[in-house]
């Protein structure tokens, strides 16, 4: 099996003994979309920063098309593209200028840089607004511009760090289509996200990451099939009540788990099971039925939900949300 990106025991310890990434290994195959799914602060961004030569691993190494990120950073930089979490384009310049500068940074001649700028903008549906200042762009256009800036040197591998963070549903779907097209072009993609739906619909394989460690890996289908069938969530007033009901239901032979004040019953067919449960549901506030998805897998593995919190650097986040709201 050929790996486009192969991480071997990556560790990153920040000053103050903060272990952001704790012995992470994985292999991204050529041409696939591989996702790191996990809550904020799980170590996704730190992993991507090491793979893109921005951060030196405390120990371990990774190979990108055979080149070591530690020993041959410049070779790695030529073949990767990065779509950062932040919006890095310059407001007071045009979309064209932003991409052109990026092309020039890879050392192309003027005419070659212009040709590549045009191609990248065209691919991202931005050619007709290329001469407008970025400050007039919508949130989705800004995200696409970030991708265009990262594609200008035609990288074989693209890292995308939370590419749809802060976007509305429509722009998000547009971007997903574009990411799928990139894969068709043969680009290997590493995606980090804390949106379960994003990981599920785009990825060939997913690694679930929490507290700097990979706790599960596989295709979305493989990961969810481990959970069995459908799940009935019974939301109670308190953890105490949930525990009590859980005891009764497990005596009746149900597969039950408690997360805080929520009770999760795994069954093969929820619609047919609910009438059976009905006599016990008098204290239940809400009933929810879910088919197995990655959110559930994460809950199962960690006992926590994939939270939707503010990223660590709140300044960048505030600037970004302000720009996206336009």
């Amino acid at each position, binding site marked *: 099996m050929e790996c486009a990106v192969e991480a071997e025991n990556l560790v990153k310890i920040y000053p103050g003994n903060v272990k952001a990434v704790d012995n992470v290994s994985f292999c991204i195959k050529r041409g696939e979309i591989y996702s790191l799914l996990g809550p904020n602060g799980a170590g996704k961004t730190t992993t991507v920063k090491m793979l893109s030569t*921005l951060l030196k691993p405390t120990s371990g190494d990774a190979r990108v098309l055979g080149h070591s990120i530690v020993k041959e950073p*410049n070779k790695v930089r030529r073949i990767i593209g990065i779509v950062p979490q*932040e919006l890095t384009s310059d407001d007071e310049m045009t979309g064209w200028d932003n991409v052109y*500068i990026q092309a*020039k940074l890879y050392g192309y001649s003027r005419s070659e840089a212009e040709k590549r700028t045009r191609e990248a903008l065209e691919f991202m549906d931005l050619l007709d607004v290329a001469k407008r200042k970025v400050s007039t762009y919508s949130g989705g256009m800004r995200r696409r511009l970030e991708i265009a800036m990262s594609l200008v040197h035609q990288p074989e591998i693209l890292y995308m760090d939370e590419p749809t963070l802060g976007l509305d549903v429509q722009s998000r779907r547009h971007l997903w289509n574009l990411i799928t097209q990139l894969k068709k072009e043969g680009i290997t993609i590493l995606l980090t996200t804390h949106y379960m739906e994003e990981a599920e619909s785009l990825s060939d394989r997913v690694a679930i990451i929490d507290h700097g460690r990979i706790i599960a890996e596989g295709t979305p289908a493989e990961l969810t099939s481990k959970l069995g069938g459908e799940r009935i969530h019974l939301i109670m007033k308190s953890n105490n009540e949930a525990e009590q009901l859980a005891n009764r239901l497990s005596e009746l032979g149900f597969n039950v788990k408690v997360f805080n004040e929520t009770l999760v019953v795994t069954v093969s067919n929820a619609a047919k099971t609910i009438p059976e449960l009905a006599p016990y549901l008098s204290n239940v506030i809400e009933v929810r039925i879910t088919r197995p998805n990655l959110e559930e897998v994460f809950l199962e593995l960690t006992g926590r939900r994939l939270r939707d919190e503010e990223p660590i650097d709140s300044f960048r986040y505030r600037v970004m949300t302000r720009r996206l709201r336009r």
Partner: protein
Amino acid sequence: MAGVVSSTLIIAWRDIKKWIGRRAVFVVSIITPLIWIAFFGKSMNIQGIFTSRVPENLPPQLQNLMQELFNQALLNAFGTTDYFTFFAAGMLAVFSLFQSMFSGVSVIFDKRLGYMDRLLVTPTPRTAIFLGKVGATLFRLSLLEILLFAAAVALGMNLKPDLSASDLLAAWIVIMLLSLGLSSAYTTLSFYAENQEVIFAVGNLVNLPLMFTSSALFPVQQMPSWLQAIAKVNPVTYAADLVRYHLVGKPINDYLFHISILAVVSLGLFIVGLALSVRWMNNR
């Protein structure tokens, strides 16, 4: 090597383009040197202080003698009876001091908004990133210094009668040398600083003392000896004296010594700054 040059140019071009693109900022920075020279220079009317002190009820001969004495005093202190001319030459150096402070701010914003990461994942030579930032500052400063100089001449700065093109070039090189050192220092500080407040705090701490302990506003020989000692290690002093020599014709006793001190301090700041900045970029 070719990579360093073209990368430096594109990085500097981005900063310059952004500067011009922000219309309000651009207009304000163009007006600033004009305001400085007009308000600052014309408010310090030292000649006026002396001339208005000659009592009018004295015989004309005595009046002339007193005026002569005052002029001699001015000549001794400033090398000219015209303080504005003395001051304008010094202001060219002081302006570089204050403008260089801003060279670092773009680095801090590039870092905080994630652009620096985008730059660092390209194969761009690390030296080019530093050179591009400093280069953009020098370009901006060149433009503003020319405006400042033109405004000073328009407002009555008396240039030396035998001013040549090589004098103008030499004065420009002196200002650029000073700016190279100062903007290297501020740019390096910005790579290590967490936020822009650090730059403003250091600027406030350093800039005014550097201005007052130099010969930019007042001649060094009028200062108490302890202050003279400080003035003699202050690069702004050497830059101001050299500019004054070339543009106004105020003699300096040891030209070579002056230019050597300025060059050593500025190139030293530049080389140390470059090394420290590249170190920051490579070790994270």
